[in-house]
């Protein structure tokens, strides 16, 4: 039983250390390189397939096979 009391503080420290690790995007945001996402007309439109079908226009060539190399 005593062992559990010794182990618990170690576990807490490990969990804290793991949660403190920064993702690359976090670092980039801190440096002021990027702003975090917020809802805008970009997301509003580009996640709405029905709307995109109304406004997106087909490209010349269609985007099928190429194949030069």
């Amino acid at each position, binding site marked *: 039983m005593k062992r559990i009391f010794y182990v618990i503080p170690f576990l807490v420290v490990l969990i804290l250390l793991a949660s403190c690790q920064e*993702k*690359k*995007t976090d*670092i*980039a*945001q801190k*440096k002021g*390189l*990027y*702003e*975090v*996402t*917020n809802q*805008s*007309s*970009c*997301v*509003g*439109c*580009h*996640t*709405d*397939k029905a*709307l*995109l*079908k*109304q*406004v*997106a*226009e*087909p*490209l010349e*060539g*269609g*985007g*099928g*096979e*190429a*194949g*030069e*190399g």
Partner: protein
Amino acid sequence: MAPLGPAERVLVSQEFLNSPHGQIKCTSCHGGNPNTPLTKDAKAEAHSPQANFVAYPSEHADVYCSSCHSDKTSKFANALHYTQEGYYKRFMIRAGGQDLRNDPKMAAGFNKDCAKCHASCGQCHVIRPTSVNGGLEKAHVFYETPSMVNNCTACHGSRVGEEYRGLHAGEEGWPEGIKADVHYNKGYQCSFCHTGHEMHGDGTKYDYRYVDNSDFVPQCVDCHQDVLDPNTENQYHKKHVQGDKKLECQICHSQTYKSCNSCHVQKGITGHSYPTFKIGKNYMKNDLRNFDYILVRHIPIAPDTYDNWGGSISLTTFDAAPTWKYATPHNIQLWTPQTDTTGTSWCGESCHSNFDKYLLTPADVDSNYLDAELKANAPVFVKDN
């Protein structure tokens, strides 16, 4: 490769928005005006140059990607997929050392006809290549390993892709029995041999894909080391790999492959591509490619190929490089017409009795450009007639 529909090309998924890249504000990478109404009329304004819209941010990887991925972007800035330095250097060799980038008309012609083979980070990791009109491959989710079909062979399709997947089988003019590459049948994708390390480069500004760098150039013997075993019982390998006259592996293990006609500039050599199997002398031996004989394929270059560009640079040293070029067909089989001994009287009969068909000679050059072709390929001909 099924084309993406107009909406699918630009559709963004919730999976992306939940991913690390999805935490970044859209305009941080793409610019544009996010405050426009969701109408067709407002679309142009949202994506206008005036709003600093950037369709392909990774074209400027040093700006948009390097803050998190500098370990890759710093090297890739010098990689052949990005710089296309291989094209420029091959041109210079045939143009008396002149760089087409110094002539505005030549540079414009190159940008129109050749530059679509350039690749940025995004064309492998988020969209399809722009040579097939781009489009978000996985609804903007970034993926580490490019899709073989929708990224790699979207560009490298007509030769590598079709050979590797056996798609020539049944095509008009192609021998029956052309099979997919044995590695494809085992499930290997392009990235199994062509790793990210090779694609991103080592930071050195190379000017040719056949570099002499064993650090990232894939070789057959990386996996098939047994062919180098001096105690091997395979007499073919003893003679043709370990012997005095070394053969490129594909000479025995490749099937018929494609040579091309009709460059994209609509000038010079025209006509359809055609099946070939030609053995030439190795005109570019180095430590990694110390073979004496190699497979070669004809490329659609001619002295007047770039005349339509209207520039001042012409191919004055056209014959400084062969038009039958080092080939690495991706259609490997253990048993090929060269190795199959069924019904033969001795083990090398299938190949050695077909030298007239297999070996490159002056009779194989393009007769429309006879003199130039004969000079250009002199180092490659195995026989003089």
